[in-house]
């Protein structure tokens, strides 16, 4: 069975509820170029939501949008990647959802979605989709922001700090964002599925 996966769209007001970023703040960030501009009514999909969410999380921790914008797209990909691994992220005919394993839905995340991604995000999603010959680059679980404005990703915060004793950055306060927990949390808080699964009529 072949599936189509169509991303759900959210309004700015829904995004305000999910990401806890006010509509005024969203508008300001778009005006200043920290988020992509929107023509007409906002129709935000999971990638847009995650970008907004990531910017909001960093802003809440005192990181200026000017600094945050450097990493927010990659951070958003990590969040979206984890959000889309949740079963709750998908809606559709009950028989489709019941019978098909999650990986089958993800195979439906085809080119239009991949075209939204850049840098390792493409590779990450391709590896998730398990497209042969495209390489594997999964987003690491933890995002770490250091006091000097630099950042890194790692699968383990403990391992990162143990392996960097000589690095002065690890002797100061850090922000740690668990992309897996936050992505899954976003999928649950969105109030409706992030993607709609349908059967491919052309198959």
């Amino acid at each position, binding site marked *: 069975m072949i599936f189509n996966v169509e991303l759900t769209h959210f309004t700015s007001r829904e995004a305000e509820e999910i990401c806890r970023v006010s509509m005024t703040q969203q508008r300001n960030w778009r005006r200043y170029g920290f988020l992509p501009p929107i023509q007409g009514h906002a129709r935000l999909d999971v990638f847009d939501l995650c970008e907004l969410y990531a910017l909001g*999380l960093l802003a*809440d*921790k*005192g*990181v200026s949008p000017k600094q945050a914008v450097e990493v927010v797209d990659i951070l958003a990909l990590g969040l979206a990647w984890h959000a889309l691994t949740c079963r709750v992220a998908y809606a559709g005919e009950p028989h489709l959802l019941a019978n098909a394993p999650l990986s089958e839905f993800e195979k439906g995340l085809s080119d239009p979605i991949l075209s939204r991604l850049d840098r390792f995000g493409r590779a990450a999603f391709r590896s998730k989709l398990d497209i042969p010959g495209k390489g594997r680059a999964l987003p690491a679980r*933890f995002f770490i922001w250091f*006091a000097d404005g630099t950042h890194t990703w790692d699968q*383990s*915060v*403990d391992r*990162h*700090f*143990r392996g960097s004793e000589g690095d002065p950055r*690890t*002797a*100061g*306060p*850090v*922000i*740690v*964002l*668990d992309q897996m*927990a*936050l992505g899954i*949390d976003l999928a649950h808080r969105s109030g409706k599925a992030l993607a709609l699964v349908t059967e491919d009529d052309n198959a």
Partner: protein
Amino acid sequence: MNDHSTDHALNFLIQRWDYILEGAAGADLIGVNRATMRTRIARGQAMAMRDTEGRERGRVEYTPRHLVYNMLYDGLARYNAAPDDQEVEDWISGTIQTLYNEISKGDFNKEALVRAVKREGKVSLTFFDSFDQAEMFTGEPSVFVPIGTMIIRLAHALFAKHSGRLAGSA
């Protein structure tokens, strides 16, 4: 920084824990902007020696206890996780005392860290023995202050600075 020199530095720190250290220019030692430190002192958000009337002294002076408190406070404040009520400030003071006791007894944990999260706008702090332990509690956006490492670096800085003075004056 080997274990032997770290022990010396920590001993130095603990023996002078509540004494004003000459040359302990607080803001510079803990990497805080001087103007920021003055503002915090004025607002009662940073520790400094005060006179009997409760006013800070004309020339701001610190003890190692003050420096450790200010260092932890700054780590939290830098990421919007500064204590927002008396209860949290008391928690920090209690934690500083616990760290003092551990250093005194010689069982100081250099991997000790403090995690700050915000729940419904309120800052909540937790003490962990290591990142290994803390990693199980990272579901919320968190600020981690590796206070163990920071104290060791402060101890080394103070020890080096003061040893130089003693050697110079001998």
